[in-house]
């Protein structure tokens, strides 16, 4: 497990590096068209081949990494953040407020995620910002439930009661004594959110409602390649493999983090 987790971590760092240094790494611009080199198979000049408009697939994957990874990271962090705040308020307040807040979450849970995402994108706009809002809006529910359960678990522990007896205010109680103890499962949750969002972005773009062309994302590239699957399979295989490896890495890392951070699993 350790070995896999290290491999995953290396791969994730590699992706982050690629995303950060995209313009330095990519051999061509993501929108440099050259009709003469359309549908080239992988070669020395174009390591991953070219697409219908003669654009270098490697460059598009590199820039696509930037789009996909940043969407995944930003939405994961923001939805976890929202979920944490919501869950903390709900769990700490308890009683009627908790009831109302959790029923609201239950209601949102019943809505089909894809339809909500599409609706949100119709309102916000069909671009990176739209995807960001759509994924955040649908992504925080799980964290909220998790956080509420954690807060409820910790808030009646003797040390918290003792702090309260000493006259500490709510803010201090929450931020000094409760939240720090809830962070471990949230970090694990975050590591699962990221690959989910990578896939969600790819899925939305594959359906043609993701980022606008010519901006590449892995989903867009998979969508463009899919139609030529029988004739030019490399156009689908490269983005597909990248999406697969990214999801795998984050999941392996998440498992490892859970094992490390969960006191009940620690030492296994």
């Amino acid at each position, binding site marked *: 497990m350790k070995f896999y987790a290290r491999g995953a971590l290396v791969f994730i760092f590699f992706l982050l590096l690629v995303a950060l240094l995209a313009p330095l790494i990519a051999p061509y611009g993501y*929108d440099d*068209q050259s*009709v*003469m080199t*359309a*549908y080239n198979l992988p070669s020395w000049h174009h390591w991953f081949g070219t697409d*219908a*408009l003669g654009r270098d697939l490697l460059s598009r994957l590199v820039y696509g990494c930037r789009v996909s990874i940043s969407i995944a990271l930003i939405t994961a962090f923001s939805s976890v953040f929202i979920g944490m705040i919501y869950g903390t308020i709900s769990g700490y307040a308890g009683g009627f407020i908790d009831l109302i807040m959790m029923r609201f979450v239950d209601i949102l849970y019943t809505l089909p995620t894809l339809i909500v995402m599409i609706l949100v994108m119709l309102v916000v706009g*069909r671009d990176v910002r739209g995807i960001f809002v759509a994924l955040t809006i649908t992504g925080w529910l799980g964290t909220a439930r998790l956080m509420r359960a954690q807060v409820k678990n910790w808030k009646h522990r003797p040390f918290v009661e003792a702090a309260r007896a000493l006259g500490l205010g709510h803010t201090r109680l929450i931020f000094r004594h409760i939240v720090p103890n809830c962070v471990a499962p949230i970090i694990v949750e975050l590591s699962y959110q990221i690959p989910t969002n990578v896939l969600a972005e790819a899925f939305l773009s*594959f*359906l*043609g*409602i993701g980022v*606008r*062309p*010519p901006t590449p994302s892995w989903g867009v590239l998979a969508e463009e390649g*899919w*139609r*030529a*699957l*029988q*004739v*030019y399979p490399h156009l689908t295989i490269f983005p597909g493999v990248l999406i697969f490896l990214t999801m795998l890495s984050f999941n392996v890392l998440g498992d490892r983090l859970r094992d490390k951070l969960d006191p009940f699993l620690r030492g296994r």
Partner: protein
Amino acid sequence: MFLETGCATNLIPSSGADRNSPMKSKILGSALLLCFLSACTKKGDGPTDTVRFRLPNDPPTADWTLATDNVSKEVMANIHEGLLTQGYDGSAQPSMAESWTISPDGKTYTFKLRAGLEWSDGKPLTAQHFIDSWERVLNPKTACEYAYFIFDIVGAEDYQKGTLTDFSKVGVKAPDATTLIVQLRKPVAYWIYVPSFWVTFPIRKDIVEKYGDKWTEPGKIVSAGPYVLKVWDHDSKIVIEKNDHYYDKKALDGMIPKVEYRIVKDAATAVALFQNKTIDIVRDLPPVQVPSLSKLPEFVSSPYLRGYYYGFNVKDDRVKDVNVRRALAMSINRDEIVKVVGAALITASKSWIPAPLLAFNKDRGIDFNPEQAKKIWAGIKDKPKVLELWYDQTSEMHKLVAENIQNHWKSTLGIDVQLTAQEWKVYLKTLSTKAPSVWRLGWGADYPDPDTFMNLFVCGSGNNHTNWCNKDYDHLISEAAAGTSPADRAKKYDQAQKIVLEDEVAFVPLFTQTNMHLVSQRIMGFRVNPMGDFYFKNLRFRNDLVPAR
């Protein structure tokens, strides 16, 4: 004057429309494709009494008065016929009318119907049924988008606009059951093609009145073509079967008894189904597969009178300046587009009237000239920084073309172009309600005459989404339509093309398309005319290839 695949309006309350969204079909399509790639089972060539044809969408309607699109046409053209039909060379051929005469002044057409014509329910078909149909087309309550198609008949336009309320004053008469006399307000050079178009097909008023909107459903619809509608599972399949009351008994003898239309939205899936022998005929092939598919013996390519263009909404602030439009037009590299999409599918064309029609002039239109475009652009005071370019999702080709043009506009003029794709039905609605600055459309000929392409852009044409209106242009089109000498007509159309393409740049023609089909080897007699029509009644199974059932 039909638009590309899909439907122009929401003619039928299609409860199933949402069920078959492009996304769902894509998911299903990819699943299907994977199935076929991984586990192709060996099968026979298919049922020996049915030919199976792929439709890209559920037809919006089978009501020939209301239909405007070529998916509906695929069904209608096989269950019904009109006075005349179009031959393989596009010429007018006898159908329900066995003969016709045109008066020397070109204003009176007399059609003589065949004796013993019958509807599919066995009732006799008379000239009055044509009059009933044309009354329905022109009746303002019907809201037929194609009403203008027969406006050249005396009084027709007034009746449609409500200024004439007595239909007996409209110039169409039936002195007896087999004679139909049509009086035109002026001679029209191409009018002989009009009676072969679906809006002019006869209709059973009693059936329409009895069933209302539901009259086109199987079991209710009454038609008089070689086939009759039997099954319509919306968004799934349509079955038509031999009509024993059809007038052409010789055709009836050898006809394939059943035609099944299968609705398969994704072109790549349709090709996979074809290769799996589940579909016999596929149209609209995926561009990326054309080079490999064209090597197959089943591949059939035929000339097509269909143009593809980028239109400007000339009322839009960003492109209202003709110089902006000119610079944009000059920055489009058609040769590159042909390379991107494939030379087998399209032929670059800067002029609008396609070859080999009258008035075809390959030199009309605006050439690719980036240097000149930059100069013009530099001289524009209030130039736009961002443009919206819209296209529909009916084919992957539209995205490729849009991305290529986006790239050229950016590199030549430095303008940022935002691409937006929409689903076909929504897209057509957007164009007719609030057209974006730049958008794409295609246009297929309804008859082999330049008029079908040119009257698209007259003021008030329902399909002119450019909002461009020019009296000189309209005048030339009207005069050219009435002209009798081909040379004179050609000159007028050419002048009109110069106005719209070069002086005003209301739209930019990009290329003409080729019609491509995959046709199973077990079928023979497959031929397509330049309008893209073919008739199932002419198809036969090759006996030696039919497997034993």
